[in-house]
């Protein structure tokens, strides 16, 4: 392995000299990760505020003058797109992927540091373009985060002049950023692992991020072409997605395009996107669970194969978002079958997380609380997926609040539980300080119980048949008054959850200066990122010598060992025998 020999020398590294090269135009993966993370959290707070506005309208209709039907749709659209793409994808891959990959595989940095830096700045550009749409005439697009044509580019939808154009351009720019980052992550995992770090010794965090990045590299191009084609339809009068139609009484020039084609392209990206968010979360939560239960992850090999299998299957289930789209109904048989098959490896992951707790030594510290909160919410969201994935059940439930409740549970709340678990877990490594435990616990309880109070009842609005994306639901015979009170209570919970995130922000910024100094490896973790010579790790991560790896990442509570964890870079003693995957024979 030639590259390890080279990497042992510190000479070839980009060497930051000034404040600007160290913190602004930085090529250090750790700084880039923080830049990604702060940007994503900032834009996520914008999306959180939008959801509060949206909930105010739903909970208390006919109260707020400034929330017009158009503004409501703009809130919905921007909330969804920001949360899925600019927060979750960016924070999980650009943030945690960047921070953890080189540290966990024992590399000095990403293999293409300059491109990594560009990736962040291009991402920032895409965020600025997106946010600019709030300030252009007509405001941002209100086409729904799925941006379905023809509606997205026709009169009658908010933001049809500028908003939709900026949205599509921003997405295209984001994909450029993602591709630069993604190529880096994949190449680093494949090429820059340190001595002894075989694939089957990698922590599940890396497996999750690695697989998700491959999914992203394969799926985002479908979104890119649909964005470009829709831009052409909008600006150049082409008809990729536009059939002949009469818009608001006026016959337009379009002819021959297919709106369903857009949906296929969008969901060919959109479904893997779910796993682009979920797989890194699966990986990180596995490591948090194992560490705080002081026990090896149960069924490591099965966990790895489940990640890979889920990733592969995620490319053949996309049309389950389109059961009632008017595509040929025969597709329903195929996509329902593939979709329900995906439940099997997913269930295995859940069993293995729970079995990791079984016979463990469970420390209920804040990261662990969030990790267990994740299992609960993910089980809930996963099980409701079995309703929607089953084509027949989709007939009454699609486009109702059941869908909204399901996907918020499974790809909103549960990955965010993992993100919080991860931040509480890795914050000491990133800053050298501990987060405040009391604030952290208050934050956990309000978030965990509060989100359940939002989304459990929401499923029942869906059973009732209440449609999503409705500015107001008055004027129907089948929706009882009590549904309005339920909506009001959901809104109150949502506002409480939203406000309780302040506890988190206060904690993060207060602890930066005033938090307790973190001991080295405060949780007693085995993986490499905690074994750096300095905390937080310096530029180049490892000092003069790269670490060598001798064992898998889960040697917790090994019988006969002096302490309840053995780091991955700890050599194997002569009398040690292990049945662990990648362990000494």
């Amino acid at each position, binding site marked *: 392995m030639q590259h390890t020999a080279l990497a042992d020398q510190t000479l070839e590294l980009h060497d930051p000299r000034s404040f600007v090269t160290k913190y602004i135009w930085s090529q250090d993966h750790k700084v880039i990760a923080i830049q990604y993370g702060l940007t994503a959290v900032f834009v996520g707070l914008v999306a959180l505020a939008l959801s509060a506005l949206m909930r105010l309208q739903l909970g208390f209709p006919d109260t*707020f*003058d400034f929330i*017009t*039907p158009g503004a409501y*749709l703009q809130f919905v659209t921007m909330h969804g797109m920001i949360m899925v793409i600019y927060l979750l994808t960016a924070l999980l891959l650009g943030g945690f992927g960047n921070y953890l990959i080189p540290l966990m595989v024992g590399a000095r940095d990403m293999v293409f540091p300059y491109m990594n830096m560009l990736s962040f700045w291009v991402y920032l550009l895409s965020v600025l373009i997106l946010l600019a749409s709030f300030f252009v005439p007509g405001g941002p697009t*209100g086409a*729904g985060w799925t941006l*379905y044509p023809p509606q997205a580019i026709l009169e*009658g*939808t908010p933001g049809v002049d500028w908003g939709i154009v900026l949205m599509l351009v921003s997405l295209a720019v984001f994909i450029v950023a993602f591709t630069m980052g993604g190529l880096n992550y994949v190449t680093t995992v494949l090429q820059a692992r340190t001595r002894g770090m075989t694939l089957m010794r990698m922590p599940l965090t890396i497996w999750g991020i690695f697989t998700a990045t491959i999914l992203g590299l394969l799926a985002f191009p479908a979104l890119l072409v649909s964005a470009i084609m829709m831009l052409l339809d909008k600006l150049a009068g082409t008809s990729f997605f536009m059939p*002949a*139609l009469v818009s*608001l*009484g006026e016959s337009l020039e379009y002819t021959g395009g297919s709106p369903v084609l857009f949906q296929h392209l969008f969901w060919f990206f959109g479904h893997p996107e779910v796993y682009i968010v979920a797989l890194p979360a699966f990986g990180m939560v596995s490591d948090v669970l194992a560490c705080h239960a*002081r*026990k090896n992850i*149960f*069924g490591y090999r*099965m966990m790895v194969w489940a990640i890979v299998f889920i990733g592969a299957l995620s490319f053949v289930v996309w049309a389950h978002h389109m059961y*009632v*789209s*008017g595509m040929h*109904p025969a597709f*329903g048989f195929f996509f*329902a079958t593939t979709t329900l098959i995906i439940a*099997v490896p997913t*269930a*295995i992951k*859940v*069993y293995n997380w*729970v079995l990791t707790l079984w*016979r463990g030594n*469970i*420390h*209920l510290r804040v990261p662990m609380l969030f990790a267990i909160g994740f*299992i*609960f919410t993910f*089980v809930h969201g996963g*099980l409701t997926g*079995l309703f929607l994935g089953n*084509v*027949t*059940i989709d*007939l*009454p439930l699609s*486009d*109702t609040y059941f869908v909204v409740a399901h996907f918020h549970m499974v790809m909103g709340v549960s990955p965010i539980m993992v993100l919080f678990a991860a931040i509480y877990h890795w914050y000491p490594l990133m800053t050298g300080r501990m987060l405040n435990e009391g604030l952290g616990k208050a934050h956990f309880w309000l978030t965990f119980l509060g989100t359940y109070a939002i989304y459990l*009842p929401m499923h*029942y609005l869906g*059973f*009732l*048949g209440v449609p999503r*994306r409705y*500015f*107001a639901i*008055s004027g129907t*015979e*089948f929706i*009882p008054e*009590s549904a309005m009170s339920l909506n009001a209570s959901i809104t109150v919970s949502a506002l409480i959850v939203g406000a309780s995130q302040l506890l988190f922000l206060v904690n993060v910024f207060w602890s930066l200066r005033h938090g307790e100094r973190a001991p080295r490896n405060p949780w007693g973790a085995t993986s490499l990122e905690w074994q750096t010579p300095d905390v937080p790790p310096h530029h180049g991560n490892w000092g003069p010598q790269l670490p060598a790896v001798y064992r898998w990442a889960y040697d917790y509570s090994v019988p006969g060992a002096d302490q309840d964890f053995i780091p991955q870079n700890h050599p194997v003693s002569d009398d040690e025998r292990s049945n662990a995957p990648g362990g000494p024979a």
Partner: protein
Amino acid sequence: MKLVIALIVLVLGSLLFHVLSPWWFTPLASNWDTVDTTIDITLYITGVVFVAVNLFMAYAVYRYRHRPAQKAHYEPENKRLETWLTAITAVGVAAMLAPGLVVWADFTQVPEGADEIEVLGEQWQWSYRFPGEDGKLGEVATRYVAPDNPFGMSPGDPAGADDILVRSNELHLPVDRPVKMLLRSKDVLHDFAVPQFRVKMDMLPGSVTYAWFTPTRTGSFDVLCMELCGIAHYAMRGRVIVDTEEDFKAWLGGQTTWAEQRARPAADPAAGERQYATCVACHGPEGRGNLQMNAPAIAGMEAWYLERQLRYYRQGVRGAHEGDTFGAQMAAMAGTIASDSALRNLAAYVASLPAADSEPTLDGDPRRGAGHFNTCGACHGARGQGNHALQAPRLAGQQDWYLKRQLKYFREGIRGAHQADNYGHQMTMMARTLQNEQSIDDLLSYVNTL
């Protein structure tokens, strides 16, 4: 410990919520009880898993919580356990999938002899078409769509002549007869959904989709658009009334065919001018309206809109609410119109009168009003010029005091809430977006500038 209690409470609380919830599927009104059965099967299986996994986790957290001298067990893998769990899960998944596929096969196979009825969606209203006596729907195409041909009927296809065109949000269906709904859209995506029927399907411009069901009980059911179609998506509502066979025939008999609609003679404004003599007292000789008489400006309004309102007044759809005293006056006057053709002549005459600018009486802020008008402009046009295709009348040139009163009437359900007011119900929803007097004044001050 708190976490263990919380997990148990959440599991039991979820079950309790499920049992006590008054929010559940609407009572079924179609043949699709098999859809409900599939849901029940899935609900029981997933319910058991939800309870089992979470209670097991709660127990594990309790039993293996950290205590001094506690040490975790070292067990990387357990092939047998993992294989068993995989197998049981696969069986459970198959048990949910199989009934789903069987029912889906039924849904894709439309029964022989099902009645074909077309649903036409457009921003933001529904229309319906029956094939008429020949049992065949005539050809349609977007390029034929025009104000006097909203369905886009092909002039060359004789099969279309007897098609019954229902230009209304309300559809009637006979009970216990399978229907295949052919779904078509003129502009963007829509979705035809009736919660009590359980089925729904998107409507796509450029193609025809379908869904079938058999209504199994009589009654009135909401039709909802369930695919986002622009800012008034939430107001795109309709109604299906499931009738007995006799009632359905009677209703269908009252609808007109495409041939009949085409054959209707043009209205005669000259004849309308003579009738207008009755209107002069309040609306003035030039139809400019009169604040003292509470009579709005009507000169130059669209004939289709005037016709609809005059009919509503005659039928008690408008002006019959006890809160609408001025409307009651108008309803009495409209009752004196001798026939439907007289009504059309009158509307044609009024429409031919030159429109004039209105006298502003409100003192709002037109700049803020412009923001509110964004919503209105979607239907009424950016210049308030009105749009026949959206059934939205012209607003520019109308007296602001009249518009203000109507907005209040819509808000309070004095106007637009009548079941037969096909398009007024949208205005009742839209008027509610204006929360106070000031917003209304601002909006109308902006309309005055148009």
